[in-house]
């Protein structure tokens, strides 16, 4: 697949259809891929990698590129990334006409930290062949079943369908029955004090690095309220850990109805806090209150929480919350 993608991209470079591409760059290990901009076909041929560790969602990088750079930029998007792309498009954060999308097929991505946890930290190389992951270590070659080391977010994959692309590699995928709300239900079924303690424990590990916010394709504000001196909530940390936890809750509110559930927040969290569950709870609630809505599904449908319809004349706006537990 990688070589086909490279071949096609080189063609696009040569035909001057695109002037740059954003993709995954080879690192020191084959699981150490850096989202990166390729400015020439030579660079791309040499350093582009698409493999089981190409997890990074590249859509958000397009904001800056389409704001600043001239010419068309090619982007590689996995199915889940296309939802983020649509969402950004809907919010006018990127210019569609400056982007060329190659949809790349996606099986589950692998989680290097799971592999290391299982097989040791002295890993030199990891590769997956169907169901088995082969790992080269300083200690020799080891194997592990793929199912044990799949990236958490991919275990609840919502869709293999690319909702937007100019060109698609592989077969058109389908929306999946992800069962992704099962985890939310577990939380919902907790007693309030249990749930409170669950989140307090999880969030207590937060180091305040902002990786979740800065990677999030829904967090695209020119100036985040948490960085804005005039906002009244700006503070690197609060002296009180409860207020620090509030960062995540406020952030979840800010992306409510806009979050596509791409799972980047949890993936990049250095402390493995399941932040996506906060967002997913909102998605579930919105679905229950206002009918199913998937952010990024298309660019026409507006989220129920960020829309006013003429039929919203008061008080018909207020629906009976029949499904509220």
């Amino acid at each position, binding site marked *: 697949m990688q070589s086909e993608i490279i071949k096609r991209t080189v063609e696009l470079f040569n035909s001057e259809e695109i002037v740059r591409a954003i993709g995954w760059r080879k690192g020191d290990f084959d699981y150490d891929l*850096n989202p990166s901009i390729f400015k020439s076909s030579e660079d791309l041929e040499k350093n582009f990698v698409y493999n089981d560790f190409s997890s990074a969602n590249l859509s958000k990088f397009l904001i800056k590129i389409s704001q600043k750079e001239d010419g068309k930029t090619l982007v590689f998007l996995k199915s889940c990334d296309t939802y983020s792309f649509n969402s950004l498009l809907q919010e006018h954060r990127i210019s569609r006409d400056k982007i060329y999308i190659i949809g790349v097929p996606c099986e589950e991505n692998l989680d290097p930290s799971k592999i290391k946890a299982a097989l040791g930290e002295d890993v030199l190389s990891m590769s997956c062949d169907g169901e088995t992951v082969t790992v080269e270590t300083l200690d020799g070659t080891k194997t592990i079943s793929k199912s044990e080391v799949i990236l958490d977010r991919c275990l609840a994959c919502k869709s293999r369908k690319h909702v937007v692309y100019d060109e698609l590699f592989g077969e058109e995928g389908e929306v999946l029955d992800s069962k992704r709300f099962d985890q939310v239900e577990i939380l919902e079924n907790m007693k309030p004090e249990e749930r409170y303690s669950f989140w307090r424990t999880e969030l207590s590990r937060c180091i305040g690095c902002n990786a979740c916010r800065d990677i999030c394709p829904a967090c695209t504000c020119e100036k985040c309220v948490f960085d804005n001196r005039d906002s009244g909530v700006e*503070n690197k940390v609060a002296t009180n850990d409860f207020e620090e936890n509030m960062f995540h809750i406020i952030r979840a509110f800010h992306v409510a109805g806009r979050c596509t559930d791409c799972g980047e927040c949890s993936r990049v969290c250095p402390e493995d806090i399941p932040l996506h569950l906060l967002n997913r709870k909102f998605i579930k609630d919105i679905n229950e209150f206002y009918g199913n809505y998937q952010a990024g599904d298309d660019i026409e449908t507006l989220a129920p929480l960020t829309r006013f319809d003429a039929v919203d004349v008061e008080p018909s706006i207020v629906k009976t919350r029949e499904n509220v537990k």
Partner: protein
Amino acid sequence: MLTLNASQLDEFFALIEKKRELYLPVENKTGKSEYKRWVEGDKYSTALRTVKSAKNFFFAKSENLYDLKMDHKNVEVIDTREDIKEFVIFGVRGCDVKSFDILDNVYLQDPVDTYYKNRRDHGLVISMACSKPATTCFCALFDIDATSPNGDIQAWNVEDKFYFNPLTEKGDAFVEEFKECFTDEDSKPVEKQKEETLNIIERLPFVNLNMEGFGVEDKLKAIFDRPEWEDLSSTCIGCGTCTYVCPTCQCFDIKDFNVGDGSIKRFRCWDSCMYSDFTQMAAANPRLTQTARFRQRFMHKLVYYPIKNEGIYGCVGCGRCLVSCPVQMNIVKVIKAMGDN
């Protein structure tokens, strides 16, 4: 060498905890290890690294400097510093121990930071030699011997035994205080483990990187002006993950927190040179692009710091940034791109 059976470890911990506060790496619910105050039942984690470094013990993520009160036109400054209880950090890896030296160079230089010194004076470090380094480790690049870490007391864990060797007066006194816990045994197993570990370290992918040209004044501008910074930083998202997991990152911010009862806590907290507002001033900001900010971080570690501190780099090769960076950009990639590798 002084030894302790693994089976007696908890007893030893309980004894320490009776007299001091004891902190050590413990596995958390995600399976990773973190420093925490020891309580009965906590098992020492032999994991290679904790997610956060040990710098928090001396340079706190957030700490109150003093309180302020304003009553109409009057302002009061209240010193809130307290006596710190003696504490012990157990199981610090060689890289993290080295990071304390790097922080010392900043916080103990004139004017001495009393908050830092206070904790430094009251903390005792028991380090732990590495036996299974990771392929992302490169402490040897900075002349750190992971098999023989510094600290007040150095320690090894060989099979079901722990070996201890005090290095400082503080360490001697501690060993003396707890002497009933230890027995004296031959240190051969330690030597054997060291040899085996060094053998692994030699084979690690990054230990032989070329550091030529970094840390010297005459190459400063040349490195600063290298075009590679642009590409390396092109997808940097400007989060602070690298700086917050880094054991040597030392920058802070000072802010006011309104407690709500009329008093203000003026606190300091970790800051990150990766943040766009790090150098934001009322009128201007000298580092306007993420490239400039990205460059500052690595220039600081690889060039500015060593120029100011006799060639000691501001990195200890712990490898945390290699694991944690959301876009897999890290100091190794920078060294490779900027150095002659």
